[in-house]
């Protein structure tokens, strides 16, 4: 049913008008009267002991109001973090990564703040920095974190933040049964989210509480953290979360908001910090990883075992590094039927920017290793690379991780669609090659979303939802659901988001969860309204409630059908008013589960590419790029296409050109847009097509599943496989820059 503007329609994006007129207010655009501007003071050093901070000269600059230093914070300096509360509000005696905040200047103007920051004199002793897995894991390596702030346990005296062992069966026992065993090590570079909007926040004291605007993805997590750190009840902390200008995971959890909040309380005035792009790169990055994979197959291609050691280079503070490494590694073996699997996964600390979630949440990393190695095994066995995947792919309802959520889609359909669209098996000219790869990622393992829907007296609707709309179009699909359920035109629905005082709780916006969890909460709120209408009508007409049904905008009574808005008017009568509905969606934690819960759904993708390689220069051109996702239902097909294409192009960037470069002392060299390259309009595959497999088999409204991450899960192995197919060059270390491809070609001959 594709109603005008309802579910399944490519309705205009809510918030689209603001975006094309420039009226949309991002955090940096919000006018807050009398705000002080903040400029951060950082060191050109990855690891240093701070000896002294002299702010005298800075304080003399006209317009500088004060300089915030560690001694101005409560002592001991408060620490926070999503998993480990180990990150200090500002550097505590030691700078642990290039860009950690040492001091902060608050001034009447940006110029004065900048001038003041330049004049703050920091005396420090540079210390050796650890910024590679080898250095961090070397026996006797210096510890990035002092044992006193680590959780007690066997890892405390090491740089291993966390270690997990997953798997099933007995790999060592079955290894001998494998006809072919292939083992290689694969590297994935540390990269950065590079949202076009750098992070920003504003904090303003509000009688005995505080108001904070932030580009944050999780406003309720920010509210909770601030309340704790500031020692206020949550009811006195109000977070406004304007739509972020892109996030890709990099804006999930608080980073600089606590500092800005303390500064606002000290100033008793609003305080504003907008990061430069360079500072944003220093604030967040994705986790680089090294994976060693052993794949054992029979000569007909069936998997016997998969054995992984996955090491993730996380930063100086835990942040979400433990979770990323665990959740990604858990699915290392992929959507396949593997009799025996062993996975050892570690998150390793280093003197680098703390890693923060990035779209894919570690799955692109493990997928890179698994799929590339599976290709190697296929080539060794002489089995077709598509056939080996179809042969081992689990069927609908079959478990790929024993005891966990089984496959929730006909995944073979997705793979066959991709294979057909790329023309798998048809010949290619010399110098061109073809690759195909599969990726699977679990949606959230726990969740809690509330929504309130107000059906107003004239039949228009307000939907309250705490999701962050950072471009994925959440606002629009909630409006579509409400329009569908209550039978109103889409133009009559408004969605209220981004205010923790007005909008009920949403756990977070991540893991592609929002269509399912918040979507169900909105759906349930609408159904709550429908139930109330039914009860009133039954009473008014003296009939049994059971004889009345409501479905998608229409009420069916024994003798007639009525559109729901008409029913509303009758129910409200001359007094008017409104009908309020509340809805909840929950996925409960399972404490005994290694990840704290099973997957709510899976994002499954198959990507196939044709490339041409210039063997003299190593330059790779993607000729055709096919991405297919198992989406359940495309609630808004135009938005789904936008997200899939966007993720595919981001995947191209991650595969071909993106990496953070550290110098010999652990400092990031390529901060900013000049030397961190992302795809431009001229870097697109010559043909890029995306498809959705829709079987309405998801747990969300009308059978929807989550989307937005699928199309970059397996881009890298598909491209690398195609490069290999084109010219024989084998690359196990991203990105596939022209230089690296060239080098691989040289090494091959």
């Amino acid at each position, binding site marked *: 049913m594709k109603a005008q503007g309802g579910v399944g329609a490519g309705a205009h994006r809510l918030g689209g008008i603001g975006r094309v007129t420039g009226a949309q207010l991002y955090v940096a655009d919000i006018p807050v009267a009398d705000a002080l501007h903040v400029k951060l003071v950082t060191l050109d050093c990855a690891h240093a002991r701070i000896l002294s901070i002299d702010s005298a000269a800075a304080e003399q600059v006209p317009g500088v109001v004060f300089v915030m230093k560690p001694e101005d914070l409560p002592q001991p300096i408060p620490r926070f973090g999503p998993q480990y509360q180990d990150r200090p509000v500002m550097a505590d005696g030691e700078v642990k990564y290039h860009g950690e905040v040492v001091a902060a200047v608050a001034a009447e103007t940006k110029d004065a703040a900048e001038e003041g920051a330049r004049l703050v004199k920091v005396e420090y002793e540079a210390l050796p920095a650890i910024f590679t897995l080898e250095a961090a894991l070397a026996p006797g390596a210096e510890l990035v974190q002092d044992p006193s702030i680590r959780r007690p346990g066997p890892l405390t005296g090491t740089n291993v933040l966390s270690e997990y062992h997953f798997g099933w069966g007995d790999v060592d026992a079955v290894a001998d049964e494998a006809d072919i065993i292939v083992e290689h090590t694969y590297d994935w570079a540390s990269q950065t989210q590079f949202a076009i909007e750098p992070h920003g926040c504003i904090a303003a004291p509000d009688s005995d509480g505080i108001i904070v605007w932030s580009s944050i993805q999780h406003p309720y997590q920010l509210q909770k953290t601030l309340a704790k750190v500031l020692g206020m009840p949550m009811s006195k902390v109000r977070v406004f979360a304007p739509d972020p200008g892109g996030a890709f995971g990099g804006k999930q959890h608080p980073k600089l908001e606590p500092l800005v909040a303390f500064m606002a309380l000290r100033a008793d005035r609003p305080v504003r910090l907008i990061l430069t792009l360079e500072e944003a790169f220093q604030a967040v990055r994705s986790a680089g990883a090294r994976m060693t994979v052993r794949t054992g197959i029979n000569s007909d291609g069936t998997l016997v075992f998969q054995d992984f050691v996955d090491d993730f280079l996380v930063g100086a503070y835990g942040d979400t590094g433990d979770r990323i490494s665990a959740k990604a590694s858990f699915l290392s073996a992929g959507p396949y039927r593997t009799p025996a699997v062993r996975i050892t996964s570690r998150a390793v600390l280093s003197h680098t920017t703390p890693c923060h979630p990035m779209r894919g949440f570690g799955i692109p990393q493990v997928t890179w290793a698994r799929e590339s190695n599976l290709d190697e095994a296929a080539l060794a066995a002489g089995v077709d690379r598509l056939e080996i995947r179809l042969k081992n792919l689990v069927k609908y309802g079959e478990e790929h991780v024993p005891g966990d959520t089984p496959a929730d889609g006909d995944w073979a359909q997705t793979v066959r669609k991709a294979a057909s669209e790329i023309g798998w098996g048809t010949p290619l000219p010399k110098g061109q090659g073809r690759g195909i790869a599969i990726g699977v990622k679990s949606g959230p393992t726990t969740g809690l979303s509330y929504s309130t829907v107000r059906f107003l007296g004239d039949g228009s609707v307000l939907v309250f939802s705490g999701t962050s709309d950072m471009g994925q179009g959440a606002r629009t699909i909630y409006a579509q659901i409400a329009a569908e359920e209550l039978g109103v035109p889409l133009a009559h629905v408004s969605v209220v988001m981004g205010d923790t005082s007005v909008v009920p709780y949403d756990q977070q916006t991540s893991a592609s969860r929002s269509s399912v969890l918040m979507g169900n909460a909105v759906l349930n709120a609408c159904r709550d309204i429908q139930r109330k209408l039914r009860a009133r009508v039954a009473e008014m007409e003296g009939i049994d409630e059971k004889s009345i049904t409501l479905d998608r905008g229409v009420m069916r009574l024994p003798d007639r059908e009525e559109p729901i808005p008409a029913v509303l008017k009758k129910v409200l009568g001359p007094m008017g008013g409104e009908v309020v509905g509340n809805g909840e969606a929950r996925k409960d934690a399972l404490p005994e589960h290694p990840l704290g819960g099973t997957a709510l759904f899976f994002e499954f993708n198959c990507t196939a590419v044709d490339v041409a390689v210039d063997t003299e*220069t190593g330059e790779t051109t993607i000729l055709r790029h096919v991405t297919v996702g198992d989406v359940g239902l495309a609630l808004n097909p135009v938005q789904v296409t936008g997200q899939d294409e966007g993720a595919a192009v981001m995947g191209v960037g991650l595969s071909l050109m993106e990496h953070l*470069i550290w110098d010999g002392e652990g400092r990031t060299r390529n901060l900013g847009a000049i*030397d961190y390259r992302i795809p*431009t309009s*001229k*870097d697109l595959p010559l043909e890029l097509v995306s498809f959705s497999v829709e079987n309405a088999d998801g747990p969300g409204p009308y059978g929807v599943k989550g989307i937005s991450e699928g199309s970059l899960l397996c881009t890298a192995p598909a491209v690398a496989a195609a490069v290999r197919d084109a010219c024989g060059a084998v690359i196990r270390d991203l990105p596939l820059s022209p230089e690296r491809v*060239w080098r691989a070609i040289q090494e091959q001959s």
Partner: protein
Amino acid sequence: MQSFRYARPTTVEEAIALLEEHGDQAKLLAGGTDLVIELRNRWRQPKVVIDLKRIEELRPSIREEDGRLVITAGTVMAEISADERVRRHFPALVEAADTVGSIQIRNRATLAGNICNGSPAADTAPPLLVYGALMVIAGASGRRRVPIDEFIVGPGKVALGAAELVTAIELPIPEQPVAAAYTRMTRRHGTDLASITLCCGVDATGTTRLAYGSVGPRALLVIDETGVLANPAATDEEKAPVLKRMFSAASPSPTSMRAGPEYRVAMLPVLGARALRTAIERLSSTK
């Protein structure tokens, strides 16, 4: 960025007087695509910024004079690239100008600024070297012309006195057929700074002029008068050692983020051979 005095002279002489007064405390502002970044990052902190865009003589213009195409200092990349005469006589310069950043940059960046900034990776340097451009310089003691090969000195350094500025760049219009092609090596297809810039020109006498940059302190011009390179009948095997010699002066930086030295050295003959092939094809189609 720090504050400064902003001056807006209306004649070349005024600009020179300001330069004389302030010396290295003054910086010239044309397109600003390099300078504004330097000011923002405080790599340069001049006391005076001299905006050249109100000087009539320097306003964007391309004209023919005495067998030369005269491109004023204020002329931007987009204007150069669109000019019919530049496209006809100096296509490699158009190819290079089209790669200097995005359209937004090309609408602002001047040819003179690209050269005076002295980056070893300046895209326009190799074609200007191949085409034998002359820099027209104004100073307190009058005007002079300097061949571009003498003008470019090293990273950030050009042969300009403290109180001098470039007023125009002149390109001698070739009397006999000449054909050149520009190419470069980048990290992505989209706008990028080059890890190799290269221009190759051949003429009817069989001389090959090859200029390349981003692999050493300055772009280099090397000339082959043996005729081997320009000879369409010569094989790749015959040309290879000649090409190799032409690149022997390359000294790429070992610490560059864009590309490693081994790769750059290997790519020079690859790009050189390709540009040479294109130049030879272009020459034969002008006959």
